[in-house]
């Protein structure tokens, strides 16, 4: 087996980087601070380079669809065309190029909010279909949802008592529940981190 496929190497790198970050968070040690800064910059760079990996993955899958004339292959061809166009304009023209600016303002920044707008429709169908009162807990969920929707809707403020009750739901039971979950989540993250740093969490590691 290749040395790069061994589990020990990623575990050692993870443990070294992870423990260094923990030390840097609590203590002022110039050497550790400079090494951890370097590791952070590496992490940002690797993440940035991974975009190329994503583009390659996307390119391979969609080029294969076009080549084999699979169903809706022309949509894959359109995706590849737009992806290449944005890459060329972004790299050679930079983000200040008029064509990049035009595509950003008229395509990207209009399509993005439109996708978010879809959520209003999904929210409507989910409210009709999914918020069923099957138990006392789901009844409480529905009542809380209605109160908080009234609180979020500006008009809710004119219904007497709604703001007071909804604010109480938001500030007391909601905050208490959120804090409990946050505490559990933080402890869960610490536990997972320890398992990862010690190499016990193996799901992402090569066999």
């Amino acid at each position, binding site marked *: 087996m290749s040395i790069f496929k061994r589990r020990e190497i990623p575990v050692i790198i993870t443990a070294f980087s992870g423990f260094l970050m923990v030390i840097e968070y609590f203590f002022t040690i110039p050497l550790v601070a400079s090494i951890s800064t370097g590791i952070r910059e590496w992490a940002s760079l690797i993440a940035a380079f991974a975009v190329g990996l994503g583009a390659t993955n996307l390119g391979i899958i969609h080029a294969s669809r076009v080549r084999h004339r699979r169903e809706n292959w022309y949509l894959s061809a359109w995706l590849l065309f737009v992806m290449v166009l944005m890459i060329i304009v972004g790299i050679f023209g930079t983000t200040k190029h008029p064509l990049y600016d035009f595509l950003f303002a008229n395509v990207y920044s209009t399509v993005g909010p439109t996708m978010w707008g879809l959520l209003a429709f999904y929210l*409507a169908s989910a409210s009709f279909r999914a918020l069923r009162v099957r138990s006392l807990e789901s009844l409480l969920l529905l009542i809380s949802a209605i109160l908080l929707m009234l609180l979020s809707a500006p008009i809710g403020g004119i219904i007497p008592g709604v703001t007071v009750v909804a604010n109480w739901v938001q500030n007391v039971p909601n905050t208490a529940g959120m804090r409990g979950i946050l505490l559990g989540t933080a402890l869960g993250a610490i536990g997972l981190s320890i398992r990862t740093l010690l190499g016990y969490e193996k799901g992402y590691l090569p066999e």
Partner: protein
Amino acid sequence: MDETKNKPSEKMAKLDARIIYLAMFIALLIPILRPLGLPLPISDMTRKAYEYVDSLPSGSKVLLALHVSVGLWPEVEPGTIAILSHLFSKSIKVVIISWGADEPVLVESTLTKVDKMGKQYGVDWVNLGYYAGMETAMAAFAKDVHGLVKRDFYGTPIENLPIMKDIKSAKDFNLVIYDTASDIAPMIRQFVAAYGIPMVAFCTIGWVPSFMPYLTAGQIVGMVPGIRGGAEYELLIKRPGSGATTTDALSLGFILLIVLSILGNVIWYSRKIGMR
């Protein structure tokens, strides 16, 4: 023939989702075309944010950190326009930094809609552009601004920008405003917990329940939620804008959601009774 199939409750239960979508479309469209002028009470969280910003003396330095994708920008834009107008009107210096790639371009477009009251770029405000790495970048910026940032969004070395001369670390800011559509915890850790800098959140409405513990614990001094918060802030600075015109749609949309969730349950129970 199965008679239950003809019952109204059966028909309603199998309601085509597109009818629901159409109802939502109409509920949102009508108030945008013809504003209904529904009342807009100011919430405590927005008032707290406004009062804190308003209490800052002229010449204070504020960091406006952005992490809102292009899709959600319209939800926070009215609030962003309002807060920038408020800051410029009080001659407060504004440093803008983005934790996402889209935001520097988006904020540039938003700034064209703000009355800058004669304020100069590089002297009174600056757009530092995008820095990758999220919490890693936040920590690096908070610790050593000049260590992370070498040039602004336009490529000007920051040594050449007068506003950046006295800003070395997070400690040099009087307030951090986080315009966000993501979790606030990383900013709380890197600015509030680490340096004790007060923070105000301008967030999308979906994040409000998650941010409440930080507001009640005093880790953020105010919160301006989504379009509604933006509209409230516009009213507080007495400059009604795009936020105020869309709050009617918000009200009607939420009312429809409430009606649908009650209707869904009524139909579900009718069917249950019918089946017995």
